[in-house]
């Protein structure tokens, strides 16, 4: 495992789990992602991402309740772990710090 480095998609999923708070299961994550990013994300990509994040320890999970909507199957609900929060903040901070180091002159004359 490559430490806690977040991929771009992984970061998006992590953020979505945070947004959905306590209702974050795969299908909901997929829908939220579709809505927020306006791109087509397939359910299996979400699956791959959440289980990987869980393995990295950035997400916790528990089984939810049964519902007839799902043919009587329970859903797995994900929540951000402490490590997940640190990872998100580190990524955010890193991005901001680096963004701030770009001199203003670099954006001039972009035309």
């Amino acid at each position: 495992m490559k430490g806690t480095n977040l991929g771009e998609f992984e970061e998006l999923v992590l953020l979505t789990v945070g947004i959905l708070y306590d209702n974050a299961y795969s299908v909901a994550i997929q829908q939220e992602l579709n809505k927020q990013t306006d791109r087509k994300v397939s359910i299996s990509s979400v699956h791959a991402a959440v289980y990987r994040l869980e393995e990295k320890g950035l997400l916790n999970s528990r089984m939810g309740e049964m519902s007839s909507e799902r043919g009587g199957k329970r859903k797995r609900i994900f929540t951000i772990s402490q490590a997940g929060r640190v990872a998100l903040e580190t990524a955010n901070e890193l991005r901001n710090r680096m963004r701030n180091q770009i001199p203003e002159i670099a954006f001039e004359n972009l035309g």
Partner: protein
Amino acid sequence: MSNHQPPKLPLKLFRFYCSDDRLEELEGDLYEVYNEHIREKGPRFAKLFYWWIVIRSFRSFALKRTKMKDNKANTSLTFLRHNLMIAWRNLLKNKSIAAINVLGLAIGVGSFLAILSIVSFELSFNTQIPEKDKVYRIYSSFTGSFTSLNKGVAVPIGPYVEETFSGLDEVAYFHTFWAQVDVIEPSEKKKEFEGQGGFIIASPSYFKVIDQYQWLAGSPEESLDEPFKVVLTTKQAQKYFGKISWLDMIGRELIYRDSLNLTVSGIVKMPDYNTDFEFTDFISHATIDKSWLKDRFGGSEWGNTNSSSQLWVRLNKNTNKVDVMLQLEDLEKHVAEQTEDTDWVQSYQLQPLSEMHFDPEIGIFDNGRNPAHMPTLTVLSVVALAILLIAIFNFVNLETAQSTSKSKEVGVRKVLGSPRSQLVGRFLTESILISLFAVVLAIPIAHYGFVYFEEFLPEGVALDYGNPFFWMVLALLAFLVGLIAGIYPAWVISSFRPVRALRPGAGSNNPGGSLIRKTLILFQFLFSQLLIVGTLAIAWQISFMLDKDLGFKEDGIIYFYTPYYESYNKSELIKNYLDEVPEVMDYALQSTPPVQSGYSTSTVKYQSEKGEVVTSAHQKTGDTTYLRFYDIKLLAGRNLLPNDSLPELLINETFMRDLGFNDPREAVGATFEYSKKKHKAVGVVEDFHFRSLHHPIEPMLYQYREELRCIALKVKGDQIEKTIDNLTDKWREVYPDNPLTVYFMDETVERFYETERRASKLASAATGVAILISCLGLFGLISFTIVQKSKELGIRKVLGASIMQISTILSKEFIFLIVIAFVVSTPISYYVIDKWMEDFAYQTEISWWIYVVGGLASMLIALISISAKVWKASGSNPIESLRYE
């Protein structure tokens, strides 16, 4: 809002590959997505998309089992790794014991493997020929003036069967044939191939009955329908023409026996499996009528049967054997009408293709393979199993003997909570590992075993390295041997109670299994002794048979046959030549030499004073020099006169007694009916052995005849080679088409006992292997006993025991076992040898001391194999063993 069930098939697929602990949540997700798609895009799209998701989900998250939850498989894997490592370390720790274990098992498995290969090789013959169950050979059997079987049939019978029989799919008649072959090169040069064998002259139907060939060029219908065509197998074709394309070979010319020009019209590929149909050149049947082959194979005689003329049929699907047998009876009647004036009856029988390879009485083909001997194969299999068993016993012995040293390990493991099953698994892993090494080592052993036994093996038998089945059998063997050999020791060792195992001094009390161990050693010695005594007895009987005076002179005599289809006048040329040559001291003519494996008998009727005596007598024919030449004593009367119209005979003593006479002089002049005519006995000769010593001497009569094909020569000992060389030159002048085959009389006699000689070689090899394995076992055991008793020995030495006394203490257990083995094995070997001897009419006396030799030999071998260790132990310094107390 109603919910739709997702399509079944992809769901099943998903459930199949998805791991159990992820299935519920994932299946639920998929269900939800599916229903959403139905609402938004309709059922059709949803269904397709469901398929797509299921396929896309075939990824690690669905397949992988998380580490925390599922550790059952992992545990057993860890245990296996652990067991393997411990087993490996244990082997390294006790290198010598491990080496003995591996070597002993390897020799056992190697012998087993080699014998298994031979047996399965022989059993595999002809089993894969298509429709083999419907293919039969028709062969002849004769009763009357002589009784015999002939694998061939008279030439006219083939076409007759083809025309009149019903219920047959195909009829193939062919002649086996041999010839020297010349290849015409494009450069007009000739390439010569000497005395090739395995040719047949066949009709196209041969390829339908024996449907084992793959045609690479030409076809069965076209290639053999005209005269002067020949079809070759790929191997033979490459031998003739080298590596050119098959099509380029078509149209090339071959010359058989200098005079038969044939054109290559087809190339066939032999099958990969074992088959007795190993012919290489197939000459078109139509050639017979158009060439000199007609003289040999074109005969129309119904009563002339040659074993080279084969008749094969393939039965219709709905026909069974009996239908054809009934028709064969009609054929017999027809043949009887065609051949009125014979004193024998020809009848015809069916031989299933599957039996051909195993019938020594009929044989396979002229100049073909030798048939396999079923009883030998059975004995071989039994020996193979016995050797494997000895090796396994050995293993069990060594392992249980070591159990005390493993008791501490068992104790600790048990204290730490290891269940018994785990302990058994741990020791089984070790034994399977050893067995695996042994099997690997067994391969070269079997391989070199084959090299050693080459002359005695059927041609082509080898370890089948290319066959995956072979490797599967090996793997299975490794596993099974390890399991069988390891289960008992594992059980014993794992049964120790931890308290006892861990208490100091636990090593000295003998754990369970000592009785079993002794029994197993007993068996090993029993088996070795049986083999030693058996080998000695066989060798004894063979030398007895070879040395026995047969009643006629056999030394330094060579003989040969002039070709039966050549004019008799030509042999006069040979005779004239023999008269001139000084090296030839004497020669005699006869129909067959005095001893031979074939025979013919005839019924004789004699009117004695007490009534009619009917007996069957062996017939011998020859010229008047026979008695002088072979040094056969004439007891009364006179020799025959050189006139074959006289109804005169010589008879042997047994015949005389059968007729009711005791004095040879009285028997002279007796007249009896033989061959439908009155004959007179003009002389009585001393009995001699005209068959192998398996048979008692039977009545024999000797008749004069003029045209005889077998010529026997007496040559001065040191000039045999020169004589044969000169004779060969003369022979080439007279019979340019035939090779000269010279037989040595004493070799002919030796060949009678070929089976026994093979048995002898096999028995000695088996003895060697059994002894070797037992020695290894003993060696291992004694090393172990010494370690066990080291303290005892140390104390004894301190108290003044001599080396001799200590050696006695160490070896007396084994000596005791050997003595018991001797007592048990003697009656068994006596019985077995007695049974084996029943096969011979003339048996050597087996002296009682053969058994003693067997017992002493095994004792000696045992003592030698333990002596070095015992000696070392007796001489060791007691300080070494007592230091730790």
